[in-house]
């Protein structure tokens, strides 16, 4: 952070578009951050193994659903690929879209109710 501040704020610098800032970002910041995010994949797999070894029903259902989605999104060709693409499209368009829209509608209703309560001066004491 100090390096980028110095590079971006030194006299004569053009700020976020300065070549020194650009080099620091592309040669240090992006590779380091990308490496950290790449580790998430390994930690996630470790968490899956540990979660399943504990044997709770919730963990099993979550991991099974994740496994189904991974299968549906596999980029493979031929007849199996066509079947997967059709199934993936149905999952996206029907159950997933339903859950997602339900969430959005629920959030919108909650925000409206909260806004109405604030505007009308209704507090928790009035409940």
């Amino acid at each position, binding site marked *: 952070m100090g390096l980028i501040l110095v590079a971006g704020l030194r006299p004569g610098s053009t700020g*976020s*578009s300065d070549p020194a800032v*650009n080099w620091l970002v592309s040669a240090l910041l992006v590779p380091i951050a*990308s490496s950290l*995010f790449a580790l998430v994949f390994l930690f996630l*797999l470790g968490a899956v193994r540990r979660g*399943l070894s504990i044997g709770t029903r919730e963990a*099993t259902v979550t991991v099974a659903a994740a496994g189904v989605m991974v299968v549906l999104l*596999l980029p493979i*060709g031929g007849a199996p690929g066509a079947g997967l693409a059709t199934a993936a499209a149905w999952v996206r368009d029907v159950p997933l879209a339903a859950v997602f829209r339900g969430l959005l509608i629920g959030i919108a209703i909650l925000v409206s109710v909260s806004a109405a309560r604030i505007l009308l001066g209704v507090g928790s004491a009035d409940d």
Partner: protein
Amino acid sequence: MSESPRPARRKVVTDAVREAAPVLALLVLLALATLLPPDLAGVALRLESADRTRANGMDAAFDRLPERALVLVAFDADLGTYAEIRPVVRAAIADLQGRGARLAMVSFTAEGRALAVAELLRLQRLGGGVEEIADLGFAGAAEAGLIGAIARIVPSEAEGSIVEAIRSRGADLDAFALAIVVSGGDLSVRSWVEQVLPRVPDLPIAAIAPTFLEPELAPYLRTGQLRALLATLPEGLAYADGVAAADGGRTASVGAMPMLVGLLVALGLIVQSLMAPLVRQSRPDRWRRIG
């Protein structure tokens, strides 16, 4: 007499190595997958998408561009999901440059700017005789920056032939024939549809997004508010393969191969972990004692 700590320590080390073995095997496999040449990788694992509908949509959006069109690349990917869309973004940029489009890149998020800088420097290193992409820099404050850019997107210090072409057309978003939004978790293309389209209704918008944004963005594609959308790995590969086939393999989508291997390894590990309790339950007691 107390037990020597050495055998106990050795057991701990052995257990740790046994526990880490799948992860180490995964790392080796990923490393090998990145080293495979494209031809051999094509034999080992066939990367292909059965459904080309959305890839054709992106092709159609690019086909409608006029000659030497000004195209804005709004680069707001995030570091966590950019790996998924990187091959598609690179293929789209190569495709647009191959069609003679004049590209300008802008970011409204800090992570998007960092990734945009890395891509711009990579393209500069590659050279290849194509016209350089104009860097319109970083307009901070995410959605507020996006709204501010509608009226004025070119920073005063920017220069170059593409920048002059944008200035001659008003230096606003109306100057562009297409905006292609590289979307991420911080600033989704949904902000473009909600904030930009009502103010600039004639600007066609296409998007490249990670899979998790697909349910949010698919309705915009159906209503025509998005001209094109690539939002899953198979869709991206279908498009990138088409671009690679059109330009003789110069932009081959080899970057997706480790991702496929990663998906398969994750799948294997999930199945193995799900099956392990069932196998233990079905194993007779005597085998359990021996094992």
